[in-house]
């Protein structure tokens, strides 16, 4: 029985699109706006090919776990349980006004979780900055 694929994979189509834009379309473009647009698109295609699955649900769970640790904190208690991102935003904003232990505890628990999420996201999107500045992404 044949194991030949019945149709091209998403990965192959993405690779074809990126390579065609880089090696066929781009060298023939002279208009600045058209060139910039193609370079952005090539970067975006590489991002699509390389990024991992969405992690919003995992991050929500991690943030909820942090808030659960703070359930007895006077800034958190009136708002928790609730939607983790909304609650975290409200309590971090409230903590800005204070230098007391409750505010410090909120910052100490929630900030590392949220900054780790942001850094994780940046790990995938940072190559797009080079594309934005006009560098053609490699295959």
């Amino acid at each position, binding site marked *: 029985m044949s194991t030949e694929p019945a149709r091209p994979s998403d990965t192959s189509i993405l690779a074809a699109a990126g390579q065609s834009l880089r090696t066929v379309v781009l060298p023939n473009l002279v*208009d*600045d*706006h*058209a060139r*910039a*647009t193609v370079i*952005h*698109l090539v*970067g*975006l295609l590489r991002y699509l090919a390389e990024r991992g699955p969405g992690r*919003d649900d995992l991050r929500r769970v991690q*943030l909820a776990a942090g808030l659960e640790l703070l359930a007895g904190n006077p800034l958190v208690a009136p708002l928790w349980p609730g*939607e983790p*991102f*909304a609650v*975290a*935003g*409200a309590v*971090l*904003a*409230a*903590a*800005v*006004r204070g*230098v007391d232990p409750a505010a410090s505890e909120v*910052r100490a628990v*929630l*900030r590392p979780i*949220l*900054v780790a999420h*942001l*850094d994780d*996201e*940046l790990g995938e*999107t*940072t190559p*797009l*900055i080079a*594309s*934005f500045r006009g560098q053609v992404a490699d295959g």
Partner: protein
Amino acid sequence: MADDAMVDGLVSNGLAAWLAQRLGPAFTASTIERIGIGHSRAMYRVTAADRSRVVVRVEQGGVFGTTGAEESAVMRGLFDMGYPVAQILIDDPTGEAIGRPLFVMEHLDGTDAPGADERAIDGPTAESFVDALAKLHQIDGASLSFHRVPATPNEATPLQVERWRDVFRSAALSPNPLVEEAAAWLVQHSPPLERLAVVHGDAGPGNFVHCDGRVVALTDWEFCHLGDPAEDWSFCRSMRGSRTMPSGTWTRLFAERAGVQMHPDRWRYWEAFNLFKGACANRTCLEVFEDGRNPAPNMAIIGTALHQVFLRRLVAIVHDDDLDRSLRAASASSTRPIT
């Protein structure tokens, strides 16, 4: 007349007909060319058969949460005051011409070498720009048509923080706690302000036309508002002008030409403010990309990578405990003003 597709698919022959109708039959467009990449607005240089030229500035589906209507109204007011700004010729806030709001302004001749770095300027041009910005800050903005007018000078910066936080909230699918924390921090540490100034909001190299060491006009007024001039000086020093020359050189130039003096903590505050503004504004690009109002690939990049880079730099400042303590001490003490 250029074929539609040869421009970029947004401008149609309808624009040429509309321009002839509004500017008079003598203005028969012969070429339409896009100027630069233009993230928030698409800019087109339209040249008529008689070689006269105008610039068409087209909204891109709500990018950055600003409107061309407010921008052109402010530009008209500044032009009437004699400030160096392009004259507005036609407003089309409803999208009558091509389905998107736009305005048409005079074309200004300046240094415009193809492929040149628009942010590379010489010393005399930098000095001329600083003089022009200082002059803007001296203008009484009461007669200009701003949508947001703070009741008192001290409310100006918190009002702008609220504005950009709301722009973020309406563009994002879910709350971002780091943005909420930064907004509260910026309000908490907002410096007192004695007098409302007209703030450009996006000032620096690349956003003015210049020729022979002299600024011909400031451009890109979509972020203009009433507020604290420190926002502009900081924006130029740490963001728009950072590639042009070192921040220390800008700081010296601001001091020498405009008498600007700021404590290092205050420079950091305003850098945070501008990063916040950028992070919030950039997030709108992902919204317009996702809902199809503007499917250009740069929208996806600005709305993700650039938004996140700005937010990461902002967080580093907001989470700097030494800076936080210093700003708290300064606001609690009348003997150590930071201005």
